[in-house]
């Protein structure tokens, strides 16, 4: 029986400052993160003591990779929010990492809350720059000029699931999921004539498996840094996905993975053909809007992206039928939508507009191109592509489509607004977020798996949070409500 899964998604946003003075992107990102304050309160620092980005899931530590150790050492903004999220500067981008969520739907809510946080922070940051300055933020993954930045999914998986099995069984899935996870883009990084492709990220991937995230990007990333009890868990760090604005796309991206990871953990995935050339196939899938291009398999036959996805869907359907006497509504919804999206992709891919980002954007681009008689590589068309991802609700083209009712919504406005400040109730994010809300002055640093308190004693006190499923509202809510101070809380926790 598979263990409960948890998920969090990190998104590096694109940032541009327009105005009388030039502002470099690192400073701009820092201004932006710093500008987002809860009523002028002091920030809670990030605790790095448990981070090992160079530890490899294949069982060794890399002595020198290209992963720079940044942020706090350079004085870059790096903070933790009352909703349990981490909001900071990574490389030269503002990054929002959602709190840990237990369902795909919750992830949609807290990911959407992140867009609002970025929108708000950008407006505040602009006010700290010379008059006439604007800070523009895009939830995208490439500038179309050779730079890519990430949207990383993180899934908690039991350590005993062999990494080799995960790799073998996930690679064909990763390669073919841009049918619904792709955010779409004009052009290509690989030369040749590509008007439009499904994925923002696909062209930037060069190898099948590896530790790197910025160079020689691998389809399967091996970073082994669980942010939880390392004897029990690994964190599967998935770096090949796009940032999605469509709620249906985010739900499917995460929901299919949560389900498939259960299937893989229980070793219930039937043998599937392996791709002969996964990286090339990833590019091919992204460049084929129909999902019907044959991909070479290692047994000498071929299969299309749609056929491969159908096989995964069938396996997941069979698995839950055997496992669950009553299917929970969240899983049922993911399965139904997955099936529907594949059926639409097979009959009329463009009819996915309003559900998945690439098709929603392509419809916009085609209409706009037609009206103005523009070539596919015209700069105004590129502006439409870019502005689709603009987080401002009055200017971002995705948000204008939402306003017109042309995009399917899954979560309510009230849920999104609440999630800007409140953590998910059923993971350790609740304890993190609530402690910060209640005891901000006594918390000197927070991390995914710890909080560090200063309650005036001789030493700082570290509260470990090694189980992502512990620290929920249900389990620690009464305790938090019963104490009047951080010191009292620590006393209760250690007694």
């Amino acid at each position, binding site marked *: 029986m598979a263990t409960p899964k948890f998920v969090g998604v990190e998104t590096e946003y*694109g940032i541009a400052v327009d105005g009388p003075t030039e502002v470099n992107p690192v400073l701009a990102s820092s201004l932006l993160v710093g500008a987002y304050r809860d009523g002028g309160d002091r920030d809670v620092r990030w605790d790095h003591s448990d981070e090992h980005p160079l530890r490899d899931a294949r069982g060794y530590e890399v002595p020198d990779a290209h992963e720079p150790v940044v942020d706090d050492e350079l004085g870059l903004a790096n903070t933790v929010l009352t909703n349990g999220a981490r909001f900071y500067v990574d490389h030269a981008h503002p990054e929002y990492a959602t709190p840990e969520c237990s369902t795909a739907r919750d992830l949609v809510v807290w990911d959407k809350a992140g867009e609002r946080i970025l929108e708000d922070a950008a407006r505040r940051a602009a006010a700290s720059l010379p008059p006439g300055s604007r800070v523009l933020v895009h939830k995208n993954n490439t500038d179309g000029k050779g730079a890519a930045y990430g949207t990383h999914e993180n899934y908690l998986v039991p350590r005993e699931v062999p990494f080799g099995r995960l790799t073998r069984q996930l690679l064909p899935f990763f390669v073919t999921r841009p049918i619904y996870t792709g955010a779409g883009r004009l052009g*290509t990084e690989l030369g040749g*004539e*590509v008007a439009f492709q499904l994925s923002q990220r696909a062209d930037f991937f060069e190898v099948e498996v590896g530790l790197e995230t*910025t160079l020689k990007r691998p389809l399967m990333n091996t970073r082994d840094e669980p942010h939880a009890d390392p004897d029990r868990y690994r964190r599967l760090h998935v770096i090949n996905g796009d940032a999605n604005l469509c709620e249906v796309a985010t739900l499917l991206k995460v929901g299919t993975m949560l389900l498939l990871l259960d299937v893989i953990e229980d070793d219930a995935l039937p043998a599937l053909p392996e791709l002969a050339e996964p990286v090339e196939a990833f590019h091919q899938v992204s*460049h084929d809007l*129909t999902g019907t291009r044959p991909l070479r398999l290692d047994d000498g036959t071929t299969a299309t992206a749609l056929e491969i996805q159908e096989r995964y869907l069938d396996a997941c359907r069979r698995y839950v039928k055997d496992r669950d006497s009553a299917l929970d509504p969240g899983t049922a919804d993911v399965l139904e939508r997955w099936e529907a999206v594949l059926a639409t992709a097979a009959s009329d891919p463009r009819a996915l507009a309003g559900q998945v980002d690439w098709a929603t954007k392509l419809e916009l681009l085609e209409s706009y191109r037609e009206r103005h008689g523009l070539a596919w590589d015209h700069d105004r068309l590129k502006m439409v592509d870019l502005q689709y991802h603009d987080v401002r609700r009055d*200017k971002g083209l995705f948000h*204008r489509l939402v306003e017109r009712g042309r995009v399917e919504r899954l979560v309510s406005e009230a849920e999104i607004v609440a999630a800007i400040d409140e953590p998910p109730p059923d993971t350790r994010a609740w304890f993190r977020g609530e402690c910060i809300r209640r005891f901000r002055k006594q918390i000197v640093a927070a991390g995914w798996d710890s909080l560090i308190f200063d309650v005036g004693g001789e030493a700082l006190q570290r509260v470990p949070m090694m189980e992502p499923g512990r620290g929920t509202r249900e389990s620690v809510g009464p305790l938090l409500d019963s104490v009047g101070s951080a010191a009292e809380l620590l006393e209760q926790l250690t007694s």
Partner: protein
Amino acid sequence: MSDGGQARESGGAKDREHEPEEQSATTGEETSREVLDDVDELLDEIDDVLEENAEEFVRGYVQKGGQ
């Protein structure tokens, strides 16, 4: 990449032009007219909100690589 042509060929206006023709009933025509009006309004709005110096903005939009 050689598959660019595929993306381009399958791109476009052609597919959508057929949609109104396929609907013959009066209600269908009304619906498609509404859809076209809606698209027109949407494109008007894009012209309104699109970055004023779109060409310049796009050319200047350069990001540092991230993860």
